[in-house]
């Protein structure tokens, strides 16, 4: 068996995780300005695709999809929102990986995505739509809602019962949840899953990719921490 120790990288991660703790506490609470919250030892991430209002709304949504709590990192600590912003400049976000030829006709949900927007356009439209809908409901933008109120809005999106304009609410919810999970669990090389915190939480060893010596060690916890391809 290989010797297990705390690597320099892991020590660095532990230091950073401690440093980030107050941020987690702040983000878990209610109130505006969450998007501006950053850890002390890191400069604030500057979004390249989303404008300030979109970014604040996106950040607040993502924070509730995978909240910071005692179980493990929240979406923001893992950088899922930054991952989504970075993805918006990849071919994927332009719809280049999808068949986007019309006509786009309404269909039953079993046939999958039938909406004409690619992710870039979809996010811009839906984030503005969420704020407009929430303003109409409560007279406040989404970021000024408390956690319970935010969760109620997300539930409406999930059920498709909130009118957010051109984008069907369920389509946006599915897109956002998928991208948030991707940013939470992807290899850190893509800008999410910072310090592999989400992998450490579940016990995924990342790109170790050689288990010849462990395949028949039934029921034994794999001893090595994860590694990234970065």
């Amino acid at each position: 068996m290989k010797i297990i120790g705390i690597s320099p990288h892991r020590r660095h991660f532990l230091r950073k995780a401690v440093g980030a703790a107050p941020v987690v506490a702040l983000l878990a609470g209610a109130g505006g300005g969450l998007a501006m919250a950053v850890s002390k030892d890191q400069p604030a991430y500057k979004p390249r695709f989303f404008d300030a209002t979109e970014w604040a709304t996106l950040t607040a949504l993502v924070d509730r999809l995978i909240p910071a709590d005692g179980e493990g990192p929240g979406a923001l600590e893992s950088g899922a929102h930054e991952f989504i912003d970075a993805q918006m400049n990849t071919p994927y976000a332009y719809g280049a990986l999808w068949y986007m030829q019309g006509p786009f006709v309404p269909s039953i949900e079993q046939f999958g995505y039938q909406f004409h927007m690619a992710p870039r356009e979809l996010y811009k439209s839906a984030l503005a739509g969420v704020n407009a809908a929430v303003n109409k409901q409560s007279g406040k933008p989404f970021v000024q809602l408390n956690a319970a109120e935010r969760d109620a809005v997300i539930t409406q999106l999930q059920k498709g019962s909130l009118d957010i304009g051109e984008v069907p609410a369920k389509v946006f919810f599915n897109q956002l949840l998928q991208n948030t999970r991707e940013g939470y669990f992807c290899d850190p090389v893509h800008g999410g899953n910072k310090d592999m915190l989400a992998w450490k939480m579940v016990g995924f060893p990342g790109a170790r990719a050689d288990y010849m010596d462990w395949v028949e060690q039934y029921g034994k916890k794999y001893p090595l921490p994860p590694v990234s391809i970065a």
Partner: protein
Amino acid sequence: MSDIKADVKMKPVDAVIVGFGWTGAIMAKEMTEAGLNVVALERGEYRDTYPDGAYPKTLDELTYIQRSKLFQDMSKSTFTFRHSITGVAVPYRQIGAFKPGTGVGGAGLHWSGMHWRVLPEELQIRSHYERRYGKKFIPEGMTIQDFGVTYAELEPHFDFVEKVFGTSGQAYKVNGIVVGDGNVFEGDRSDNYALAPQKVPYTAELFRRAAKAVGYHPFVNASSNASGPYTNPYGCQMGPCNFCGFCSGYACYNYSKASPNVNIMPALRMVANFELRANCNVVRINLDGSKKRATGVTYINADGKAVEQPADLVIASAFAYNNAHLFLLSGIGKPYDPVSNEGVVGRNIAYQMMSTIQTFFKEDTNTNPFIGAGGTGVALDDWNGDNFDHGPLGFVGGSPAWCNPAGSKPISGIATPDGTPAWGSAWKKAVKKSYLNTVSFDCHGANMTYRDCYVDLDPTYTDKYGQQLLRFTFDWKENDIKMSRFVTDKMMKVAEAMNPESIKVSVKSVGDHLDLRNYQTTHWAGGTAMGADRKTSVVNRYLQSWDVHNVFAVGSSVFPVGIGYNPTGLACALTYWSAKAIREQYLKDPRPLVA
């Protein structure tokens, strides 16, 4: 029909191969051995272990699975779907239920390596059921039919495929003598597998123990992930699989998973009478004035030029349904019409009827699901094919079941117990607890064929070249759902015998429709069915077109009915069977091999 005119005409060759996955590579090897000048045309990019499977870049779930690095480029071409012959089809816009391949190696580069033959009676499915249960047993509208070839005829080819692939496994009987604890339901074998079975990961071992405890017959299933170093009959080498867990959807970085790129291409590189052209998308097989002889193919090259490649022999080896697409675009064979029940091209399309059982255990069970190989695992055939009495059950078909630890990655691979919300703290708590403490297994059911399940050309949507997309008219039928529910119920006993904290079952109910959103299986079959009767098949028993005798179709497109097993072993054995007929009969005297 395609009306693209060629800008360039190439020098004639003896044989042109359309699509360079497993079956195209096998045909290229066989035809070059026969001394023919062969050109293979692959619509996708050139691919190989390096750089497409290079360590560590390939170990990237986001890029390879979520962003479909090696799968078909949907922006260029896709398929449309509707549930019934009166519906309006819409495009399959994002990869979901199935993951079609493209590029050199085809889906054979990023498949899992589950390696099966076929149950002998499945090759004679209609006559077998009629003989055992009576003609009335097969329901109205079910169009299952015999393959027109027997297991005994295919056996030498199954054996050779396993030697080419370096297949790991354990036989039950060889030449009628019990040699080990393999699959008691397996057909006769002339030899054991090429390599010893792979090691068994923990989840599959738990499945094996539980299946034995309830009286079933589990065995370590055959896998084309090498259990040790291996050199195949072509001199191509494989290294032992290290259970890296990045298998299905990825190119193997370790030369351990059989692929056309690893197991055949190195041999083809050594011969002067073979040329592979990537980024060449065939749009049509060209016919002469009589429409009874092909003159070659027309393709679009990487520069967008239309190129005519004359050839004396045309092999259609595109993926599954794509052979039917090519035949329809080329005017080969009569298109199938479900209303009049006439025509053949596009008829008998089958998918697979999946159900999944997930069992959740207490913390510190450490099932370590990141350890895996695409083909490894433990399976049982007690409820597959006609291995059990269907008489009182009233359905046709069956389902193998297996625990196949292929390597679960966190974005797409973490199961959670019933009732877990999709987001929030409760979701996070559930994934944290479940990832290392889950055992998941599948019932990989056969899907029968039906009069109103078929493919034709879509009237509305086109591909990048302006050609009509292939349209699927397909839905689940009561027979198959009844089968799946029966087998799933039998497999619940295995789940219960594992004594988990909770069990989650995903199985269809009568009335459920085909759903393209979540991954099921890529194993479509049919469209250019083989058979003994030209009224119900597109190619004869040697996979030769009934209508155009110098065109042969290979791949799972020739299956006239769905099977529960993964189709690669059968598709490749049939390819060698066809190649033998071409080499020994057709080349000497080019003609229809069956009158």
